[in-house]
């Protein structure tokens, strides 16, 4: 009784969660997910067990019926003996036979209760959604209250009304289950009703009933089936509980719960009289529960797998080393002594079932003190992963290797001790893409800043909080004293991103890594945050490593630009020299940035094609399939080599670099001084 209710509740919650993200898919796709149950060995075992239990319920009484009623007067109340493996009861009847016969009543009653619960619950739940707004609020309030009451009370209620017996017990368990199913139906169908195709159906004048039967029910069927299986399992257990108490099946009928109660009285003479029915209850309950759990897990896992696959694709990677991949020469600028970050041959790899994928394939990078370097590339180029692995924030299954990885005289490849941790914590700071999720929602903003100082600089909380307030003032937060005591949800996105920058200022930053710091922000706020980054860099003397997909963002802040494609650096050059870019990919990126001169009547320039599929990177230059200059030579991977330009020296990995500032193809080159995303230019 109790079990029925809380099991349904828990499973409702988990399954609603599992089902929610996937419920956007068409019905046909979801059916196959239940079919997936048959594809796993555990799934086949669970379903086989279900079938066996049901077969037992159907044929048990036919096969063992007479044996269960035969009295063996020579062996009353006996323990396990030959002929009676589970022993006999006080009338000398065989307990094993009785357990097998009792399956029909135990399972039949449990399934009837489940059926009642589902039908009543689904009806109430859909009514709550299809009724008017007011009425549906009343419905949900009542469902909420009903869900909160344990099934025990309902069992009591029905036991009093119908007397102790199977009718009352079935109704009680059904009623106890109904609110859970009502809430599940309501939640699920509300999400379906809100979806586009239902709105479309409504616009087309389809009747409510038809919307319900044609669109809503098929889409919520799967989570309902999963939950029904779980509920059937818990119902079986709960019914056994009721019978055990004497509130369910009454003598001379018997089910497993009833047998358990009788067996418990005889536990000293024949433990099997209690353990036998207990085993039957547990095994059949487990069979249903296992099926339901598997179904719920499959529903959940399918969606996470799909997501992971997408992310894997976005990260860009290859499964084989292209010729010459290992042989990237050192960058032309030799690491000078004032370098704050030195990276040599940084590689990030993931071992998957289909082989090793390498999203970052040998990146060399040097950032000097006070310098601002930008990494640009399409999503999937490996730029964010490069930043994360430099900061040591990647985790399994990603594997990071490098020939050299120095930050401020600290070798990041080896284990970092206590002092190294403090040094990193105070001098390497990070700003991430999404300010809405980068701060801990349950901790005051001020404390999240202050923590850096208490952890690494042995400040008292009081002093650390004071420093936090002053840093918040530095990043232009108004009323920082009051704001510091607030929680992140009380702050806007732009303010939170400033708080992240302020967090980096708590120590003495030497390098600020900002990974797409403005992507999630409004255009006007973007510019403010960029300006703040710039002034922070100037005032603190820290170097800046800015990662962005937006060339205009990088060129407005950085001294040097590093262009990444398919996990490699394809070009590196001073920002001032950007208009003389040598690599066709950089050129294409530049053309894709709209400027004040861009003719409005023409469509915006884009780069034809897509970044290479990580699973099958082409032999040779990965940009070749999209490159207008590609020829047979590009089948050999080009190395990142110095290329003479008109002004400064740059590096490009291309067999056919643009050597002349005026492109041969006749496309005019964007004047970098006018480059800027629309909006940014104007706000300046």
């Amino acid at each position, binding site marked *: 009784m109790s079990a029925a209710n809380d099991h349904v509740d828990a499973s409702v919650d988990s399954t609603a969660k599992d089902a929610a993200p996937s419920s956007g898919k068409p019905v046909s796709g979801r059916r196959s997910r239940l079919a997936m149950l048959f594809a796993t060995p555990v799934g086949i075992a669970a379903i086989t067990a279900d079938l066996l239990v049901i077969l037992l319920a159907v044929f048990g009484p036919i096969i063992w019926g007479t044996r269960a009623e035969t009295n063996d007067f020579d062996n009353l109340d006996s323990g396990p003996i030959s002929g009676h493996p589970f022993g006999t009861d006080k009338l000398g009847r065989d307990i094993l036979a009785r357990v097998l016969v009792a399956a029909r009543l135990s399972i039949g009653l449990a399934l009837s209760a489940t059926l009642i619960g589902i039908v009543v619950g689904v009806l109430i739940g859909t009514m709550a959604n299809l009724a008017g707004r007011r009425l549906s609020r009343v419905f949900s309030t009542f469902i909420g209250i009903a869900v909160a*009451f344990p099934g025990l009370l309902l069992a009591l209620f029905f036991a009093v009304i119908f007397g102790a017996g199977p009718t009352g017990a079935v109704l009680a368990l059904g009623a106890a289950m109904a609110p859970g199913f009502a809430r599940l139906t309501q939640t699920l169908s509300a999400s379906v009703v809100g979806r586009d195709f239902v709105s479309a159906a409504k616009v087309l004048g389809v009747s409510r009933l038809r919307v319900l039967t044609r669109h809503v029910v098929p889409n919520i069927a799967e989570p309902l089936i999963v939950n029904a299986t779980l509920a059937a399992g818990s119902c079986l257990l709960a019914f056994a509980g009721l019978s055990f108490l004497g509130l369910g099946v009454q003598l001379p009928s018997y089910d497993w719960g009833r047998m358990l109660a009788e067996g418990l009285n005889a536990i000293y003479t024949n433990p099997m009289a209690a353990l036998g029915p207990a085993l039957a209850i547990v095994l059949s309950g487990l069979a249903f529960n296992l099926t339901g759990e598997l179904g719920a897990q499959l529903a959940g896992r399918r969606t996470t797998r799909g997501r992971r696959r997408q992310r894997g694709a976005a990260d860009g990677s290859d499964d084989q080393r292209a010729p010459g991949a290992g042989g990237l020469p050192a960058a032309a600028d030799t690491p000078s002594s004032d370098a704050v970050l030195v990276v040599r041959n940084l590689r990030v790899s993931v071992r998957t079932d289909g082989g090793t994928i390498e999203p970052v394939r040998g990146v060399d990078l040097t950032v000097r003190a006070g310098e601002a370097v930008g990494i640009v590339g399409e999503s999937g180029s490996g730029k964010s992963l490069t930043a994360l692995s430099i900061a040591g924030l990647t985790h399994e299954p990603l594997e990071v290797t490098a020939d050299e990885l120095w930050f401020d005289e600290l070798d990041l490849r080896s284990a970092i001790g206590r002092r190294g941790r403090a040094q990193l914590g105070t001098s390497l700071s990070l700003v991430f893409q999404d300010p809405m999720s980068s701060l801990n929602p349950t901790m005051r903003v001020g404390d999240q800043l202050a923590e850096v100082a208490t952890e690494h600089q042995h400040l008292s909380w009081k002093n650390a909080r004071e420093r936090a307030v002053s840093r918040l003032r530095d990043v232009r937060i108004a009323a920082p004293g009051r704001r510091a005591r607030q929680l992140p949800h009380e702050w806007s996105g732009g303010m939170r991103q400033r708080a992240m920058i302020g967090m980096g200022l708590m120590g003495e930053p030497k390098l600020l890594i900002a990974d797409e710091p403005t992507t999630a922000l409004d255009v006007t706020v973007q510019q403010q945050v960029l300006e703040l980054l710039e002034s922070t860099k100037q005032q603190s003397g820290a170097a800046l490593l800015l990662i962005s997909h937006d060339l205009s963002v990088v060129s407005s802040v950085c001294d040097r630009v590093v262009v990444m494609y398919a996990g490699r650096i394809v070009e590196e050059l001073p920002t001032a020299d950007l208009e003389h870019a040598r690599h066709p990919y950089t050129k294409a990126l530049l053309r894709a940035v709209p400027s004040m001169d861009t003719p409005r009547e023409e469509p915006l320039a884009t780069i034809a094609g897509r970044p290479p599929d990580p699973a099958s990177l082409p032999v040779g230059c990965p940009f070749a399939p999209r490159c207008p200059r590609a020829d047979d030579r590009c089948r050999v991977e080009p190395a990142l080599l110095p290329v003479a330009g008109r002004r400064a020296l740059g590096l490009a990995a291309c067999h056919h670099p643009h050597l002349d500032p005026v492109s041969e193809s006749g496309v005019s080159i964007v004047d970098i001084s006018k480059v800027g995303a629309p909006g940014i230019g104007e706000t300046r």
Partner: protein
Amino acid sequence: MATVETTIAGASRRQSLLANEWVRFAVRRLGILVLSMWLLVTFAFGMIHLIPGDPVRAALGFNADPALVAARRAELGLDQGLLTQYWTYLGQLLHGDLGTSLQSRLPVSQVISDRLPNTLALAGITFVVTLLIAVPLGVGMAILTQHGRRRGTELGYTSGAMVLSAIPEFLLAVVLVYLFAVKFQLLPIAGRAGFSSFILPVAAMTLGSAAAISRIVRVEMLSVLGQDFVRTAAAKRLRPHRIYLRHALPNAMTATLTLSGLLLSSLVAATVLVENIFAWPGLGPTMVSSILSKDFPMVRAIVLVYGGLVLLINLVVDIVLAIVDPRSAIRKA
């Protein structure tokens, strides 16, 4: 779902009324409490009237002496009009008068005050023990198995916990009784006498729910550990225990607290079965015997007590949640 989301959006737009949100929360929550209380009280009242046929004859048998039947009807107030009965009932309830048990002829309130503390002790201890096992276990397993590490441990733990949580308390109780009281005779088989008598009933109720809750704590914790702000904490190079306990754990607590509330109210119900197995002097055995003997005033009082307990627990959980999770106050207002 859609309506919930629009109200969230609407609520955050009205954030300037932040001071009012607690007031609105209190009003709303109290409203729900009063409504649920009234429903409970009315259900408890209506129970006897929904019995098909004559409840008194059903209780006393069809051949009972008509004079006895009439007396019993008068005692239960069934000879009066329904509304009068309802008002008398509400009035008596306000004075703490729950009537007299038909079975024992003792005042119902006395039986309850004798037996309820035993049930509460059992449920309370079980609750604390469950959380003391489930939360550290769930957090620990999340940390050990994050990023897909230790696949074997994970598989062993999840399948073990699943099997354990699928076994109902009363069956565990039977197995425990057999093992520790019958076979090895280490612990008392029944009754309440000192510390050792708590071990078996508490263990029977703890094992399954601790397994179930630790699984959910682990899943919650894993999802929190995957969030961006944990990466921010790692970027600050905080010590691991601070990242886990100060940053991740509080964010995993919302679900844990909600579940604990559910656990506590389901424990109230679970005690009924377990008390019957262990002959525990709580309300559980009284409940069963009063239903079987159709002791209506007793059953009615027990419904009120169990229901009231559950409502109280839900109220406490909601208040704690609103305080612990700053976003939930807004969500509810």
